[in-house]
């Protein structure tokens, strides 16, 4: 029913299926009405969606027969099915109008609605087809109303789906001077009976009738006059909408200036009517902004205010703090337009009022309004500034207010660095941060300030000297460097990354260099030190043009989408991307993450050892039995290891394999104390201590735990998603790092093959780039993007557990790479 093309991919299968279903239908007992109706819907869906409507004539005939004689619900369904067929194949019923008219006339039960709608649609489409024809004669015109031939399967077809007339540049019209008497009486009757239809269906009927009248010059628009008052007063949204459609189509040929004025007043009234629901009111506000005026000044399809909506009329639509957010924003937007159009005196007053409203909102934000209030208020402010940005004085006041608020609530930082705000605000924020007493710069709000400064540093028009002084001051006069918080360090470096790109860098060159050097020496975190050093090197060795070139390349990603080279890459706002996702991508990541719901999934590393005799031991121990190996942990990073039992070990036989299953809580290197209990041939038991088993970092690497048949695409997507999530800096624990080295004797490809064969996600040798994912139980990842640049290899490392970074730093991910590491500067 809902996805017919999945089971019926082609027209022929569709046709077969429809026939099968038809036989099901005819064999279904009379009393199973609901089933019968559903089968009819299914057949209709299959026929239309597999495009075999044109070849499969029988169904429509069957449905039409059912319309004539059967139980009520089945007749209703048959009508709906035919109506859908006619919609998807306009003109299908164009030669059956007489029969449909008779059916409609005979029906006096509630079903006449269905017949009425079916007939009207058929009539409209038949006339639309005639408009394509030149010089229609009276006879031809008459014959459509009296048509009772076959189904018009192929002839006279309109396009598969024709647009309603309000979407057409030119309304198709029939030839002038046709005899419309009969059609007119049919139309009058339809209109008269429209009252008997459900409001939604009534509105559909009215729209069809409007289209007919618009296409037939011989029909007068005044046909609708009798209905207008009833429609003007209606509380039903679809009927009111149909009335507006009528207004749009006929403008002043049906609606006088008085009518227009009246209708608009009604709309404004309804847009704030206490008894209508919020969504209805929002809809009416949209209708006001797209009101079909008789004399429109512009018709661009953009929002525009009808001339008749004056400040006085719109007074009740003023936004208030009590409105829900959509209503408030919608009203604000409308009122901004009203006051933009108003004459001066009135406008000033009105704008003043809107300004007060904005200030009231900001006051609520200032009083610790909820997140929704913050977002809504700032959106309101944005709408206001969009319309009145020319009014310097106002915008300055507002910016001042925002800066004040920021001084008190630094958590607003992400909202205030939204790209919609002007440079002025950023300049103001920078100033506020500078003016803050040092005591107010706690670690917590410092991270917000750094976020703001990072954004400020992107603005070429804002001088950055103050930012640098502040940072220098903070770093030197606090214990930040000793604390060596990686995240703060990274946030500081993120500001620098943007500063390096700043056009006025020359003016602050020395200070900047000082600072970088200070960090590279004093900051108690190796990664941060390294990066500060890289920046320092870049700053002191490259011209600004080159420097921006290098940085720009990093930002834009280039081939390898090098999005997150730690601080080189500004910590990008990719949070969004990790939250949002296409269905496909989310799917794989979800599949992947879903696996972890299974208890114990991916939580173990199995290490294999051979249990052998030490080289020189007493022959007495050549044969030992029932050995029990017992393991003691030296730290708390692993779960207790269960004892292992081995039946026997003989010196002259193959040594048995022992599988030690480790369950890490934290995947760090460790070592285990091992002891053994065993029995001798003579029955005596011994206890002995074995050499410690040391578990190195690479030994706990596992390949990405996905089902074995997962496609490469799936692996890649999971890799990318984890990378993005890590790069987003969203989590406290994630980290990104970069290092470069020169492979000496072996080629990079070989190195990777030797050390990462089992962990490769992609291997694009032709493009000289590789992606490697190391999974560490219970749920940590180290991701590598390795690219071969001209004379060095670049390795970007991302991890969702930055505690792991010291390990790759010390063992450089694999001992092999460590050996190769010789240079550690960017290859310029």
């Amino acid at each position, binding site marked *: 029913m809902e996805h017919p093309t999945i089971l019926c991919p082609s027209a022929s299968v569709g046709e077969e299926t429809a026939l099968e279903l038809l036989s099901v239908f005819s064999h279904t007992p009379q009393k199973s009405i609901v089933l019968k109706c559903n089968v009819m819907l299914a057949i209709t869906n299959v026929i239309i969606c597999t495009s075999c409507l044109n070849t499969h004539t029988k169904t429509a005939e069957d449905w039409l027969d059912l319309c004539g004689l059967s139980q009520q619900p089945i007749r209703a369904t048959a009508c709906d099915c035919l109506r859908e067929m006619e919609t998807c194949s306009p003109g299908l019923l164009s030669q059956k109008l007489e029969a449909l008219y008779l059916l409609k006339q005979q029906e006096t039960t509630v079903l006449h609605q269905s017949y009425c709608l079916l007939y009207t649609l058929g009539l409209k489409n038949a006339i639309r087809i005639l408009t394509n024809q030149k010089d229609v004669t009276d006879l031809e015109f008459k014959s459509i109303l009296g048509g009772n031939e076959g189904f018009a399967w192929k002839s006279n077809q309109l396009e598969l789906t024709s647009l309603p007339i309000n979407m057409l540049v030119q309304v198709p019209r029939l030839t002038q001077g046709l005899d419309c008497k009969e059609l007119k009486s049919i139309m009058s009757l339809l209109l008269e009976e429209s*009252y008997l239809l459900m409001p939604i269906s009534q509105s559909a009927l009215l729209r069809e009738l409007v289209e007919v009248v618009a296409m037939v010059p011989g029909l007068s628009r005044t046909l609708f006059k009798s209905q207008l008052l009833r429609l003007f007063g*209606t509380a039903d949204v679809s009927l009111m*909408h149909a009335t507006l459609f009528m207004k749009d189509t006929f403008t002043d040929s049906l609606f006088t200036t008085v009518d227009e004025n009246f209708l608009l007043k009604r709309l404004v009234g309804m847009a704030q009517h206490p008894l209508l629901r919020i969504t209805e009111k929002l*809809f009416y506000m949209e209708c006001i902004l797209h009101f079909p005026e008789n004399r429109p000044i512009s018709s661009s399809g953009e929002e525009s205010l009808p001339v008749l909506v004056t400040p006085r009329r719109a007074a009740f639509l003023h936004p208030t703090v009590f409105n829900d957010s959509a209503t408030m924003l919608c009203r604000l937007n409308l009122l901004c337009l009203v006051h933009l159009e108003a004459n001066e005196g009135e406008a000033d007053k009105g704008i003043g009022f809107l300004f007060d409203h904005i200030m009231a909102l900001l006051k609520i934000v200032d009083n610790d309004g909820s997140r929704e209030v913050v977002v809504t208020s700032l959106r309101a402010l944005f709408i206001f500034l969009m319309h009145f940005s020319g009014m310097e004085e106002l915008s300055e006041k507002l910016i001042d207010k925002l800066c004040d608020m920021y001084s008190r609530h630094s958590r607003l930082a*992400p909202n205030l660095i939204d790209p*919609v705000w002007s440079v002025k605000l950023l300049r103001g924020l920078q100033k506020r941060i500078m003016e803050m007493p040092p005591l107010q710069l706690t670690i917590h709000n410092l991270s917000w300030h750094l976020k703001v400064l990072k954004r400020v540093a992107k603005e070429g028009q804002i001088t950055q000297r103050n930012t640098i002084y502040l940072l220098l001051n903070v770093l030197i006069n606090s214990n930040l460097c000793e604390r060596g918080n990686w995240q703060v360090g990274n946030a500081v470096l993120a500001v620098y990354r943007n500063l390096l790109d700043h056009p006025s860098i020359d003016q602050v060159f020395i200070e900047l260099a000082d600072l970088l050097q200070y960090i590279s020496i004093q900051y108690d975190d190796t990664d941060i030190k390294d990066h500060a050093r890289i920046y320092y090197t870049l700053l002191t060795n490259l011209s600004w043009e080159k420097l921006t070139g290098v940085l720009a390349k990093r930002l834009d990603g280039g081939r390898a989408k090098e999005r997150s080279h730690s601080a080189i890459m500004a910590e990008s706002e990719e949070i969004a991307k990790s939250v949002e996702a296409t269905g496909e991508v989310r799917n794989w990541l979800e599949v992947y993450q879903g696996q972890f719901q299974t208890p114990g999934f991916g939580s173990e590393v199995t290490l294999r050892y051979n249990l052998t005799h030490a080289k020189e031991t007493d022959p007495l121990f050549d044969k030992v039995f029932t050995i029990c190996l017992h393991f003691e942990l030296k730290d708390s990073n692993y779960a207790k290891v269960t004892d292992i039992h081995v039946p026997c070990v003989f010196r002259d036989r193959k040594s048995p394999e022992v599988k030690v299953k480790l369950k890490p809580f934290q995947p760090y290197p460790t070592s285990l104390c091992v002891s053994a209990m065993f029995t001798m041939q003579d029955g005596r038991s011994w206890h002995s201590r074995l050499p410690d088993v040391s578990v190195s970092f690479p030994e706990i690497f596992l390949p990405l735990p996905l089902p074995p048949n997962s496609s490469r695409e799936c692996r890649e997507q999971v890799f990318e998603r984890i990378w993005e999530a890590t790069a987003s800096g969203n989590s406290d624990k994630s980290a990104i790092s970069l290092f470069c080295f020169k492979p000496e004797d072996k080629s990079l490809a070989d190195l990777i093959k030797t050390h990462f064969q089992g962990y490769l996600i992609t291997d694009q040798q032709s493009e000289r780039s590789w992606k490697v994912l190391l999974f560490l139980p219970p749920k940590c990842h180290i991701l590598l993007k390795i690219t071969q640049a001209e004379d060095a290899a670049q390795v970007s490392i991302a991890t969702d557990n930055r505690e792991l970074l010291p390990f790759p730093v010390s063992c450089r991910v694999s001992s092999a790479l460590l050996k190769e590491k010789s240079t550690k500067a960017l290859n310029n």
Partner: protein
Amino acid sequence: MSIRALWVVSHEKGESGKVRFSRRFPTVEFRAKSLAGTQYVAVPEDRVIPQLLLTELGLVDPDKPYVEVRDDCARQHRSLAVELRLDGPGGRTLWPVLTVTQGVLILACLPLVEAPPEPRPPLPSLASVSQGLALLLGLQDFLCGPGGKPEPDVLASRLAALPAVLLQVCPLGRPLDTPPPAGSVPAAVAPSPGGAQKQPAWKAGVHRGRAVVSVALTEKVRSMQYGKSSQQDIWDVYGMVMCKCEVEGVLPNVIVTLTLPHNGSPLQDILVHPCVTSLDASLLTACSVDENDGSAFSGPYKFPFSPPLELFRLCSYTSQVPVPPILGSYKLKAEENHLKVNVVLKLHESVKNSFEYCNAHIPFFNQNLMGNVEVKVSSGQLEVSKEKNLLVWVLGQKFPKSREATLEGTVHFSGTVAGPTDPLCSGLTAYVKLYFRVPDLTLSGCCVDQHSVQVYSSAKPRIVTTRELVSSEYYIWNSTGDAPVSSGLMVL
């Protein structure tokens, strides 16, 4: 005039959304594909819908202060339609998705865009929008019922009935009708007698049995009183007439007439039920949007209609009455660790002094919980709420003879536990909220005379008419503090 898909999504606090019901309409999708051509965007699978919807509605990650996709300013969220960003920012979008939220339920549908997709057509130019909206609003009534908060098992059973309902009202994506409101008991009807008279589609059969017509008029009064010369007090009244007509015949005629007292102010913004057969132009002329010039039509208001079987809202109106029924003053002063409170309520002489109930709530926000309360009232009783953050002044059924009641005293906030917060009510910004109901009264003076109800039917029906006045959003703000302005009326 069709919808492509329909969803019912629930989102409990702290949980991700769940699709409780969904329906695709393949033939409409078929049309959507041909209309949009290369710009066609398929409807995604159900499992991605909740997240996309919740993001647009600002309901994801409630514990994160800022999430760009949810909170950025460039997206203005001032329309009834949202777009779902299928591939994140900058990617394909599904538009226009109409949504209606009630409690934990989000109802959404995707109307067919019968227009070239680019540039994006205005919503009002699309016929499917109001049809989809009407369907959603009907669905809301069907699922949530009059209380708005159905019990989980009730909701589940209503959801289970939805396929059968859609088979009736929207079998192929084209809404024919709206779902029946929940709890509406199908009237005992006899099948249509047949004959030449066509049966209205909105009336399943005819009534048999005793003829009764009941007409209930409810007026609600809202007010914002500031007690300041700089801020004008405002109040307004809106009313609705609910009818239930058990009258024989396929299309019986009934006329209900509303009358106003001499020089009563005219009823404005009259909206009528689709079953009203004709309207006089003069009824519709008065509109709150325009200034009253005194010459406006002031009744009698005749509504000829042919009633459906169920209870329905015949018409609604707004009215501007000269005085609020209760005029209040609220004075709050902060002294050391306590607040001095003074509230005076005056019942206007034109209002009948006979309430079903009348309570004044005096909440305290952004304070510690109340300790000692030394407050005296001249009439009624005072209660301190269990939560220790609210005074409830129960005025009872009558104001004293003087029609004036006062509350005076001090409230200490000695507790150490912080009470509820409200960003609006900081400092001395505070209000008293009134709740009252007066039976057999309307402020506008509007009434339905029992004898004016005309029924053209074979049997003479019993006619019942009632009226009442109920408060709604009736605030009296502390005059010594800043009160949030609530209306653009001040501009005038």
